[in-house]
C-alpha cells in the first residue's frame, strides 16, 4: 500500500474531515515523494515553505468544520499559471526570474478553497508541444516505462501528468489548447478534463492562443475531476470570455447513470495505420457504454481531417500576437546589448535568445499567416474551416447525440526524442483532441486500458457545451467498467 500521497482527493478529503490525517502530514508525504522524484523532472519550482504554511492554515480551517472539498489537498500547478511571488516561467527562458505580483484566478480560487500548492510543474515552452521536450527546464520523464526506454509524458501539461501519476501530488492543474491536458493524461494513465471554453477563467494564465486555451483538472479519478473542476470554475469579470452562468455541484451530480443516452461514434476518427491496441480500446469503450445502458450510433463529423491544419493556422496566429509582449522591456529576459544597439536590436536579440526553437517557429508561422497578402488566404480561410468544424458538432448534437466517444491519442506514450525533430509528426499527436478546442467543447480523457507493452491508453469523451456534469457521468461509466487500477512501477 502506498503512503498518504497515493490517496485520491475524495479519499483524502474524507480522512481530513474525519480527523484521521492532517493536511500537514499529507503535504509532507507529497513533498517527500517529490524530493525523491528528481529523475522525473516534473516539479521545476518546489514550494515546500508555502505548502506547509497553507497546510497548517487548512488544518485550522478543517478543525473548525465546514471546510470545502479541496481544503488541505496538495496540488501541483502548471508553470503556465501566474502565482504570486513564485516563479512562473511558462517553461521559457524569456520569463527567467519572472515572479508575478499577482495570483491567477484559478490558483486564487483553489487557494480560497483551501488547496495547498506543492510546486510549479514542467510543461512545453508556452504550452507549445506534445512531449514536454521544448521546456527550458529539460524534458519530463514519464513514470511509465516500456522496458528500459524512457518515454515522454506527453505535453504540454506533461509535468502535471507525471506528477499525478507518480503520486507527487494528489492532483494538478493543466491547460489545454489542442490536447495539452487530455493527451498527457492518456499517456500517464490519469484523468484530464478540458472544460467548455469560458467555464474556467483564463486570467493570470500565460496566454498561448486565447480562443483555444482553457484550464482544467488532472486527477487520479473521475470523482476527483468533478471536485477540482468545480473549485476551478466560475465567472470572472477579469476574463471577458468567461461565462456568467452558474457552476453546478459536479460531484453531487455524479452518478455514472447514462441509461437511455445516445453516444456518437465518429467514423472519421478511424485512421489508417492506427495501432490495433487503440482500435481494440475504442471497441471496448463502446461495449462499456452499451453495458451501462447507452445507445451507440455511428455519426459523421465530415471536417475532422481539416482540424489540425486549421489549428496550425489559428493557434500560431494568436500566439504571434500574444507573444509580442515579450520585448525585453517589462518583464523577463533582456539580451545583453552591444554599445549602439537600438530598441529594435533589443527586441530581436532578446526574442532570439529567450524563445526556444518551437516557439520561434510558431511565432513566425503566425506572423506569416497574418501578414499582408496572406491574411485572407490563410488566417481567414482557417477561421471559416473552424466554423465548419464547430457546425459538424452542432449538427451531431442537434441529432440527439449526448456525447461522442473517440480514442484520446493515436498511440501510447512514445520514446523521448522520437518525434522531436519532425514538427508535423509531433503535431499529429493532437489529431483526436484538437477538434474539441476549435469547437470550444468540453472533453475528458479517462484511462481505459493498457497496450501490449503495458502502457496506459485513454478514451476521450466529448460533450455538449456547458454539460461537463453529464460528460463526467459518461466518464465514470467507463471508469467503473474499465477497472483501471494500474500504476507505474517506481524506478525513480
Amino acid at each position: 500500500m502506498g503512503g498518504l500521497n497515493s490517496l485520491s482527493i475524495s479519499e483524502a478529503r474524507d480522512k481530513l474531515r474525519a480527523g484521521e490525517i492532517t493536511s500537514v502530514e499529507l503535504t509532507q508525504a507529497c513533498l517527500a515523494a517529490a524530493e525523491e522524484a528528481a529523475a522525473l523532472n516534473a516539479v521545476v519550482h518546489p514550494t515546500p515553505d508555502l505548502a506547509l504554511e497553507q497546510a497548517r492554515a487548512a488544518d485550522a480551517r478543517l478543525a473548525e468544520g465546514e471546510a470545502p472539498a479541496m481544503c488541505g489537498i496538495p496540488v501541483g500547478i502548471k508553470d503556465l499559471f501566474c502565482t504570486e511571488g513564485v516563479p512562473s516561467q511558462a517553461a521559457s527562458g524569456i520569463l527567467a526570474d519572472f515572479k508575478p505580483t499577482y495570483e491567477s484566478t484559478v490558483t486564487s480560487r483553489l487557494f480560497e478553497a483551501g488547496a495547498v500548492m506543492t510546486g510549479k510543474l514542467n510543461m512545453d515552452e508556452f504550452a507549445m508541444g506534445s512531449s514536454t521536450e521544448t521546456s527550458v527546464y529539460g524534458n519530463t520523464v514519464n513514470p511509465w516505462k516500456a522496458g528500459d526506454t524512457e518515454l515522454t509524458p506527453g505535453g504540454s501539461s506533461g509535468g502535471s501528468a507525471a506528477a499525478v501519476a507518480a503520486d507527487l501530488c494528489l492532483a494538478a492543474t493543466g491547460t489545454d489548447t489542442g490536447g495539452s491536458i487530455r493527451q498527457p493524461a492518456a499517456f500517464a494513465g490519469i484523468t484530464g478534463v478540458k472544460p467548455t471554453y469560458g467555464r474556467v477563467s483564463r486570467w493570470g494564465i500565460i496566454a498561448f492562443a486565447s480562443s483555444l486555451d482553457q484550464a482544467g483538472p488532472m486527477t487520479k479519478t473521475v470523482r476527483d475531476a468533478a471536485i477540482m473542476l468545480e473549485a476551478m470554475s466560475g465567472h470572472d469579470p477579469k476574463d471577458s470570455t468567461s461565462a456568467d452562468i452558474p457552476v453546478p455541484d459536479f460531484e453531487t451530480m455524479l452518478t455514472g447513470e447514462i441509461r437511455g443516452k445516445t453516444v456518437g461514434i465518429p467514423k472519421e476518427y478511424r485512421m489508417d495505420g492506427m495501432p490495433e491496441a487503440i482500435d481494440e480500446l475504442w471497441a471496448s469503450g463502446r461495449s462499456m457504454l452499451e453495458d451501462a445502458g447507452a445507445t451507440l450510433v455511428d455519426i459523421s463529423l465530415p471536417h475532422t481531417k481539416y482540424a489540425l491544419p486549421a489549428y496550425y493556422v489559428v493557434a500560431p496566429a494568436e500566439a504571434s500576437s500574444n507573444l509580442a509582449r515579450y520585448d525585453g522591456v517589462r518583464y523577463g529576459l533582456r539580451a545583453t546589448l552591444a554599445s549602439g544597439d537600438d530598441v529594435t536590436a533589443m527586441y530581436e536579440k532578446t526574442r532570439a535568445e529567450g524563445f526556444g526553437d518551437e516557439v520561434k517557429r510558431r511565432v513566425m508561422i503566425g506572423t506569416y499567416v497574418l501578414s499582408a497578402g496572406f491574411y485572407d488566404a490563410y488566417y481567414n480561410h482557417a477561421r471559416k474551416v473552424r466554423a465548419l468544424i464547430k457546425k459538424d458538432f452542432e449538427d451531431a448534437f442537434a441529432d440527439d447525440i449526448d456525447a461522442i466517444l473517440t480514442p484520446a491519442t493515436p498511440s501510447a506514450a512514445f520514446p523521448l526524442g522520437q518525434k522531436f525533430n519532425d514538427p508535423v509528426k509531433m503535431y499529429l499527436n493532437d489529431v483526436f483532441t484538437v477538434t474539441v478546442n476549435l469547437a470550444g467543447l468540453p472533453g475528458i480523457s479517462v484511462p481505459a486500458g493498457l497496450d501490449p507493452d503495458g502502457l496506459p491508453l485513454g478514451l476521450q469523451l466529448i460533450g455538449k457545451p456547458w454539460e461537463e456534469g453529464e460528460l463526467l457521468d459518461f466518464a465514470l461509466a467507463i471508469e467503473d467498467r474499465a477497472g483501471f487500477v494500474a500504476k507505474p512501477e517506481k524506478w525513480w
Partner: protein
Amino acid sequence: MSIDHNDARRVAKLARIQVDEEDLPALASEFNAILGFIEQLREVDVQDVEPMTSVTPMRLKRREDRIAGGGIAGKVLANAPDAREGYFVVPKVVE
C-alpha cells in the same frame, strides 16, 4: 506557395526575432513543411461561410467607463529588466 530564404528573413524581421543569415535556408524549409501541411485547407469549400469570431455565442459584457485600481507602479515595475525612478528604461529611441 513556397517560401525561400528571403521570405524567411522578412518573416523573422516582422516577428522581431534575430535569425543568422546561414540559418535562413533551414528555417525556410521548416516553414515549407508546415505550410505544406496547412495547404490541405484549400480542399475545403468555404463559399458563404462566415469566419468564426467567437467560440461561445455570447455578448461581451459592458462595464462602466471609469478607472478601477491603479496606484501600483511599484508592482508594475517589479519585474522590469531595467527600471529607474518609476519608469521602464530602454535603449535610446529618439536621437
